[in-house]
């Protein structure tokens, strides 16, 4: 039974449909894609034209009075609508990783959260998929892949799994360096970071930037501890109650992250040659650290004006003897 509230919503949005122009552009873009696909296979031209006619007729449901759109416009739509430069990875709370291809379609599903042997196999499969995907996109002049890795993990995913995923992206045959850190269920714009790359360094008289490290670990009581290292007045906060989702303790975390951001800003203030951030999650105390904590620390760095943030590595899971392809 439909109630009054539902009826109001239905009436309010009854006309939310794609515009006729959008339908017409889609029809042209589909026709363009169809022709492009048909050409290499040397299919007869009439097949493409007939297919386009069918698609245009179908899209005509929303494009009753379509104006002619030229081919260049359709190509522009194809190019602009599909950026083709992002690979998206979701990681759930139990360590299953889903990898999407450049076009947004699902590509692979691997497990990083199981036994070390299974995690090792999963990581191998992830690397193979990334090698295949990045091979399809021309590399930059320096050999790096222009494809970005967008991470969309569950907040409860272990940071270790994200580190392994980044290791797969840094594989010599992959060389993806642009990472975007999003979060499942969030519409916040992901934080973008570039992984450090060992390229030829040019000599310079300037001193290198100074690193400011934040250490995230699991405390002795089983909670989380976040610590700013290497300063005269160390800043530390413990979440000793539990590693419960942040939503259950928003005030505490919000206050702590605000303090951390302020401390980071102070630490960076006197450095003339610039500062980079470093997030360390040491083993074994960091094995239980969740993605949401690291994501919050990353946010604190950015709020402090430190955009260059680096991450320490994590030991690769050990393969089962005699089964690894590596």
């Amino acid at each position, binding site marked *: 039974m439909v*109630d*009054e*509230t*539902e009826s*109001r*919503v*239905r*009436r*309010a*949005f*009854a*006309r*939310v*449909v*794609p*515009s006729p122009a*959008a339908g017409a*552009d*889609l029809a042209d*873009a*589909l026709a363009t*894609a*169809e022709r492009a*696909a048909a050409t290499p296979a040397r299919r007869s031209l009439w097949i493409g034209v*007939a*297919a386009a006619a*069918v*698609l245009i*007729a*179908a*899209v005509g*449901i*929303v494009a009753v009075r379509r104006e002619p759109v030229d081919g260049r416009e359709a190509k522009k*739509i*194809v190019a*602009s*609508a*599909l*950026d083709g430069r*992002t690979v*998206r990875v979701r990681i759930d709370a139990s360590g299953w990783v889903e990898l*999407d*291809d450049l*076009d*947004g*379609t*699902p590509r692979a599903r691997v497990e990083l959260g199981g036994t070390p042997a299974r995690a090792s196999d999963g990581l191998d499969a992830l690397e193979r998929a990334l090698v295949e995907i990045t091979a399809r996109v021309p590399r930059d002049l320096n050999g790096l892949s222009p494809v970005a890795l*967008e991470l*969309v993990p569950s907040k409860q995913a272990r940071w270790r799994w994200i580190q392994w995923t980044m290791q797969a992206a840094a594989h010599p045959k992959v060389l993806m360096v642009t990472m*975007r850190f*999003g979060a499942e*269920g969030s*519409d916040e*714009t*992901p934080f973008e970071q570039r992984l450090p790359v060992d390229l030829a360094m040019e000599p310079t008289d300037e001193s290198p930037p100074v690193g400011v490290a934040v250490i995230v670990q699991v405390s002795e009581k089983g909670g989380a501890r976040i610590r700013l290292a290497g300063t005269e007045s160390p800043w530390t906060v413990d979440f000793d109650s539990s590693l419960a989702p942040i939503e259950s303790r928003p005030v505490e975390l919000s206050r702590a992250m605000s303090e951390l951001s302020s401390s980071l800003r102070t630490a960076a203030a006197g450095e003339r040659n610039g500062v980079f951030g470093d997030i360390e999650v040491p083993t074994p105390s960091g094995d239980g650290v969740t993605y949401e904590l690291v994501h919050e620390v990353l946010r604190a760095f950015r709020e402090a004006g430190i955009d260059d943030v680096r991450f320490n590595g994590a030991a690769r899971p050990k393969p089962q003897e005699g089964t690894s392809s590596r």
Partner: protein
Amino acid sequence: MDATLTLVERAQAGDRSAFADLHAHFGRPLFLYLAGLLRVREDAEDAWQATFLSAWRHLGRLRRPDRFAAWLFHIGTNSARDVARRRTTFPKALGAGDDLLVARPDAQPGDSDAARLVAGLEPRTRALVLLRAVEGWSAEEVGAALSWSVATVRRRYARALDLLRAHVNERDSNGR
């Protein structure tokens, strides 16, 4: 056999008219979903076009034709993320004509209130409400498209409706 599954299998076998039928069936629901995520007409239309283009190009790669809706909406979610990342206009700065989540000008005051309240929901919940209330999809259909369990769809929709009802009732009583 499920009608959608038949269409997907025919489309995978090269039947273009079957893909056209799939577009006709899923075009509006997908657009409502994207409108819920992105709000802005131009953005939602870009993502909508990109989704069908991608689906058209890669239908052969779909291994589970019985999960076409989930696959299509999955591509839609990714397209929405791509569009959201590159956009420069924040929805709050939009004119009324660009914002899909504003009631049409001739709407009743109660309907406009409902539209404002829906716009204030979290994006995925907005999308859920639009699919259920506007498109009239069942909990099973929404669950299949969004890869949620039917129980999750029902629970989230009931919670969203309770929230909307509470606000509407409060406004109605204040208006008297």
